């Protein structure tokens, strides 16, 4: 029992001695290094050693002479993160760690703009989110002002300035009353990224048709179809014409061509013609010869 206790205390004392030796051998390391910048690591002692710098994205290995300073040129470490430094000599091993942080100067923006297409006149319909990166694609987590600018062809411009939080900033914009291809720009200093947002016409508004007798047929033609803001509804939009006569019904789904839809249906005396597009109803015409 006494022998065991003596052995235990012996091991404990040896461990404490080793710990104090390691503390003494700690290197003089910088706390942080900016990504891509030059840095140096001084060492103490005599003889040859190997210096390892190990991070998540990079590993450096360098033979050094103890007692001298190891210099690392610009661009040696570019990935931000926590790095472990080990100086392995013949007699002792020294270790420590430091952080590589992103550069302060923004160089790249990742800009997510949603949606790429939306109807006109939608409040809060457009969102833009920006992530700011340095020259080495490290996220810059320091607060950085970002300006968002949404420009419509009708020269309406919406602007917002937002400071990044944890490297990200976002803004919400409205779609304007005019259709067109908007330019959505996010800018940080001289760095910018552009997205396009198509503002498209909304549902048809005040859908109206006229009727004209052509031989035995009635030609139904809509007025130029526009939305409630006056934008021309695009060609290809389906307009449904319906004829109700004596309990029978005829329908045609006709796409807009050159802004209008046109169809010929049988001319029955007393027939009722109606027009609709999507969930929007237009006028009705009762045909009397």
């Amino acid at each position, binding site marked *: 029992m006494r022998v065991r206790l003596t052995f235990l205390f012996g091991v404990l004392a040896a461990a404490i001695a080793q710990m104090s030796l390691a503390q003494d051998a700690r290197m003089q390391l910088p706390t942080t290094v900016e990504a891509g910048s030059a840095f140096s690591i001084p060492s103490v002692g005599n003889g040859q050693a190997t210096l390892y710098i190990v991070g998540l994205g990079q590993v450096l290995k360098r033979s050094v002479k103890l007692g001298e300073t190891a210099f690392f040129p610009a661009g040696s470490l570019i990935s931000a993160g926590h790095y472990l430094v080990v100086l392995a000599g013949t007699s002792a091993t020294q270790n420590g760690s430091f952080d590589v942080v992103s550069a302060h100067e923004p160089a790249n923006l990742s800009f997510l703009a949603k949606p790429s297409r939306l109807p006109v006149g939608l409040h809060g319909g457009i969102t833009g989110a920006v992530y700011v990166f340095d020259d080495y694609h490290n996220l810059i987590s320091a607060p950085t002002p970002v300006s968002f600018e949404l420009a419509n062809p009708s020269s309406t411009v919406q602007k917002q300035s937002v400071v990044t939080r944890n490297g990200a900033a976002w803004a919400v914009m409205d779609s304007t009353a005019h259709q067109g291809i908007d330019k959505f720009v996010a800018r940080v200093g001289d760095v910018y990224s552009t997205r396009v947002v198509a503002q498209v016409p909304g549902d048809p508004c005040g859908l109206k048709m006229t009727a004209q007798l052509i031989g035995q047929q009635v030609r139904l033609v809509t007025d130029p179809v526009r939305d409630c803001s006056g934008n021309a509804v695009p060609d290809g939009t389906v*307009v449904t014409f319906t004829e109700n006569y004596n309990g029978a019904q*005829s329908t*045609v789904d*006709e796409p807009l061509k050159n802004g209008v839809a046109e169809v010929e249906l049988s001319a029955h005396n007393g027939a009722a013609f109606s027009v609709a597009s999507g969930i929007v109803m237009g006028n009705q015409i009762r045909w009397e010869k």
Partner: protein
Amino acid sequence: MNNGRLYAALLGTLTVALVAIGTIWPAPSALAYSGAGSILGSSSTPQAAVESLGEEIRKQAWEKAYGSLANRTQFTEPEFVKDLTGYYPSLLTYTALDKFEVRPLHSSANEAEMELTLHWATVVGLSVSTRDLHVVRNGDRWEPEWPIVRESIVPPQVIPVNYLRWDVIYRGPGDDWGAQDVEAPHVRIVDMHPVDRAEGVVILGELLNEDVVPAYVSVSATLLSKSQSAIATEGSFDKIDHLLLPKQVTPFLIQFHNVTLSDVGSIRMNPLSALIPASADPVIEIGSEQLHPAPGASLTGQLINQSGQIVNVAHVLGTFYDKSGQVVWVADRYVDQALSPQTPVPFEIHIPEDLARNVSSQRTVVATYSFGGSQ
């Protein structure tokens, strides 16, 4: 032991004898299935004559079928074949007659009227067509007259078409992570209504493409129990018009077999849409639509292809509403005849008898498919 050998020898002899009898004097049905003859070779009665014709059509023995007709001088054999299988490629082009039924309508000493119902097995299910045949006596034989329907052939011509077409360029694999892609079309379920039927729960509804671009659409639904656990998930499959042009509305129907509505706590609907290249052509007019009340409730009408492109397969979907405008049923029918330009083609959609009395109005849409077409 001796008895066992005796039985074995007896059975062996009997088997050989039966095989020999079957080979020398085969049954008519065996002959027919081996292709050497017909089950119904006789034409001694009007019924037998039409049954014989039906059997030849089933075997696609066009020459024999044509040869058995009393009025064959009025049309050629290719015209007879095209009358049955279509003048242009259609559903019937790639099908076979599954079965047929013959029903006497009227009969006298020298002539008779028979109804021949043909059940075609198409890729989208059974297609049934009915022909009324006049059968005449010729000596001791009866010969059917084929009621030929000559489809009007569109004369060679050039039809200019200037309908809009949409093409799509998607984002490339090398694009930046934040780069934009084309937005999927915005679609919306504008009506949804679950009903309890004998076969299970059926979800009816309508889907609107509220965007300015064409959409490939589909709808799926998940039934959730009262404890919010999933009971089943089903899709609309072909009970929907999958291609929606801007502002176009399609009905949809989703069937859940062996589920009752009382077991369902809620329903999760999932409309899917994808941007696809599409053309606004062809435009189909749906004319002379008429609702027929029960019994035999149906919606009839005719399709008129207003474009220059031949539509090989047309799928008609009818939405039926009650007086308050709520969807009470969705039914569909494939038209087994190709749609030639400006040529009316009739269609008929059956409505369940028990729902027919609730139907007040309807809306019909047509999905079209063209072989080698531009869509």
